């Protein structure tokens, strides 16, 4: 097997070629080309043709802010409410203002959105207040379209190399990004690539909890995303925020993929309990929604189902056409294997394992409205960056924001402007030491023929995460977890790997452990309950705005231990009233209307008018 030559340096390195990484690479390459040239390197652990959350496409944009349907201010207000007020509105607003040009760009690249017969975008309401869901019934081609643009822009792509640590150097008293250390997961080679700017786009921490099925890779998230980005940023000294605001999603039980309420909801599908009664007003995924879902699941009225069997046959055909061809296309095979169909059976639902993901929730590397982290020259975008509920379009938009800021910065820097780095600059002594230590850390398991196997180590730490960290949370259980984690760290030091693939898994277990520890410490620090199930503490069941209207941040302390700090919530740029700030907590339907709700007349039959691409 030939190993692609890995360059020694690049002006901008993008780590992770999923949604955010694709646009980051495209716009960085275009920007540098316009500013006089420069090399953009896209480092991908898998292969960009099929990597990330959109490996098999996506069936819709969950948060499109389209003129005539929604305004950026409306969107910012909605996301502020959905996050119980703890948001940096400037970062959400930057997304909201830039999302429309991104949609137009995608349209120009050939992404087909659902449109009305009049040619307008066919935006649907799923959120509590505004309309932001734009279907892409033919979204299975999305990754192919992005890859074509990556090639056209002249990005240099290196597949099957995973970043294991970032290189950071002291430059005039500030920590400045200097490069990336990567492991070739096929050959086992470790290389160092120097860079002037690094954009992290490694997706969610998707292998934190263990799915109820017990299958390590049966996760909601693409399991290539093991929390690498969170751990990379943490070890580089960056601040992370909202880690205690977990991701927990309502999913098809055992299959562990979305049902998907955003596709079926606008067509008349909804969540019901075992009595067939609706119990929540809105299927938009929020912590409050998940808490009601969780309570219903664990009550005498559980389990919970997605109800579609009341829909017209042509509606069901349309739902299957979308759900069984894109995003998670093996859904149909799963139902068929159990002899079930949407026409005759309700779909049993469950809650997912816990994860960290700003795309759906709010945990991430702290970034501002330019996608800058707290480390100079280091950017983060997508599911691993802190802009909440950012979803697919947020990843694509913030990839671009990061690229544009990085290019502007390199262009403005010094007399050489954006002049490409001609060779890898000499390494400082500290960097030489750091690189040698990293090489030793990463490769050590290859030398331990009787070392502990990665998959057992992974099972163990994720089982401990389930036992101790899954909400509802208590300080006692969380402290107990930290004790187990400490012991586990010494077991991980005994890991063995038979080949580079297993080596990758060992490194990932380290990332998982780092994420679990961050999740534990951030959750312990916030002694209140907030965000519904995401941070539901049995020992502090009430929300306490007087004390806890702050961001809780995690970073690597100077003593090498994990440190916690707080940041005030920046003054709102879009005013939100106190009443609005509590509006998402009113999601449960009052008992008296807890009857099978009639299907809206317009959803009984799905007319050609609502579907542009039959």
């Amino acid at each position: 097997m030939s190993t692609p030559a890995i360059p020694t340096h690049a002006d901008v390195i993008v780590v992770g070629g999923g949604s955010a990484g694709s646009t980051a690479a495209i716009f960085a390459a275009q920007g540098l080309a316009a500013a006089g040239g420069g090399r953009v390197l896209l480092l991908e652990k898998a292969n960009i043709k099929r990597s990330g959350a959109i490996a098999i496409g996506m069936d819709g944009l969950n948060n499109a802010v389209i003129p005539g349907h929604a305004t950026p201010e409306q969107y910012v207000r909605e996301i502020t409410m959905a996050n119980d007020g703890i948001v940096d509105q400037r970062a959400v607003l930057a997304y909201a203002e830039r999302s429309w040009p991104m949609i137009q760009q995608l349209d120009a690249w050939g992404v087909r959105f659902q449109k009305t017969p009049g040619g307008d975008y066919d935006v649907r309401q799923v959120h509590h207040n505004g309309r932001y869901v734009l279907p892409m019934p033919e979204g299975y081609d999305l990754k192919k379209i992005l890859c074509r643009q990556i090639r056209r822009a002249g990005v240099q792509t290196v597949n099957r190399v995973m970043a294991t640590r970032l290189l950071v150097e002291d430059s005039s008293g500030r920590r400045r990004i200097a490069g990336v250390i990567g492991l070739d997961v096929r050959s086992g080679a470790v290389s160092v690539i120097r860079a002037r700017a690094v954009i992290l786009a490694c997706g969610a921490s998707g292998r934190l909890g263990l799915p109820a099925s017990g299958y390590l890779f049966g996760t909601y998230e693409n399991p290539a995303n093991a929390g690498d980005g969170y751990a990379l940023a943490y070890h580089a000294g960056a601040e992370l925020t909202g880690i205690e605001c977990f991701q927990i999603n309502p999913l098809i039980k055992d299959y562990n993929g979305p049902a998907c309420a955003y596709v079926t909801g606008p067509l008349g599908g909804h969540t019901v309990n075992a009595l067939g009664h609706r119990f929540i007003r809105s299927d938009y995924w929020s912590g409050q929604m998940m808490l009601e879902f969780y309570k219903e699941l664990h009550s005498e009225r559980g389990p919970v189902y997605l109800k579609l069997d009341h829909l017209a046959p042509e509606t069901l055909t349309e739902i299957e056409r979308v759900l069984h061809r894109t995003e998670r296309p093996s859904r149909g095979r799963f139902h068929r294997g159990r002899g079930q169909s949407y026409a005759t059976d309700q779909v049993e639902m469950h809650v997912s394992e816990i994860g960290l993901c700003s795309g759906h929730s709010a945990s991430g590397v702290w970034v501002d409205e330019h996608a800058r982290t707290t480390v100079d020259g280091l950017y983060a975008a997508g599911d691993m960056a802190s802009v909440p509920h950012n979803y697919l379009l947020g990843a694509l938009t913030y990839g671009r924001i990061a690229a544009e800021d990085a290019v502007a910065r390199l262009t403005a820097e010094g007399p050489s402007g954006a002049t490409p780095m001609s060779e890898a600059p000499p390494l400082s002594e500290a960097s030489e030491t750091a690189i040698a230590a990293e090489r030793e850390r990463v490769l050590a398991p290859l030398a331990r023929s009787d070392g502990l196997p990665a998959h057992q180590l992974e099972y163990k730490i994720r089982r401990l995460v389930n036992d101790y960290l899954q909400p509802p949370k208590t300080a006692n259980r969380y402290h107990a977890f930290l004790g187990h984690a400490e012991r586990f760290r010494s077991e991980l030091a005994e890991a063995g790997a038979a080949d580079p693939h297993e080596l990758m898994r060992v490194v990932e277990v380290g990332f998982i452990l780092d994420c679990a520890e961050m999740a534990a410490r951030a959750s312990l620090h916030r002694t209140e309950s907030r965000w519904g199930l995401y941070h539901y503490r049995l020992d502090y069941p009430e929300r306490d705005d007087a004390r806890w209207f702050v961001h809780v941040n995690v970073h690597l302390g100077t003593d090498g231990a994990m440190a916690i700090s707080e940041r005030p919530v920046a003054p709102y740029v879009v005013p939100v009233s106190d009443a609005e700030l509590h509006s998402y907590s009113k999601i449960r339907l009052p008992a008296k209307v807890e009857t099978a709700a009639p299907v809206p007349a317009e959803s009984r039959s799905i007319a050609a008018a609502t579907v542009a691409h039959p």
Partner: protein
Amino acid sequence: MPDLPDREPVKAAQALVVGNAQTRRRLDVPVVVDDSKCVTGCRICVESCPVDCLAIDAAAGKARMAHDDCWYCLACELDCPNDAITVKIPLLVR
């Protein structure tokens, strides 16, 4: 086992330092390759897999699941030019 209580302190101390032993086990894996169709061993599926769990078996020259790490995403099945792959939902999930 009359002498177990006597040996226990020694064994418990030894268990901390004794090293590790290994065994192998069979696994049912989700990816099934039809060897009669995987004539070329072209590696397209191997390159498609987001978790790198496929490989070309050196002896057979055919694609195989090398690691039981599947997301049942269907990328390999969709991309195989010869329709040689059928992905089953993993046993623990189906």
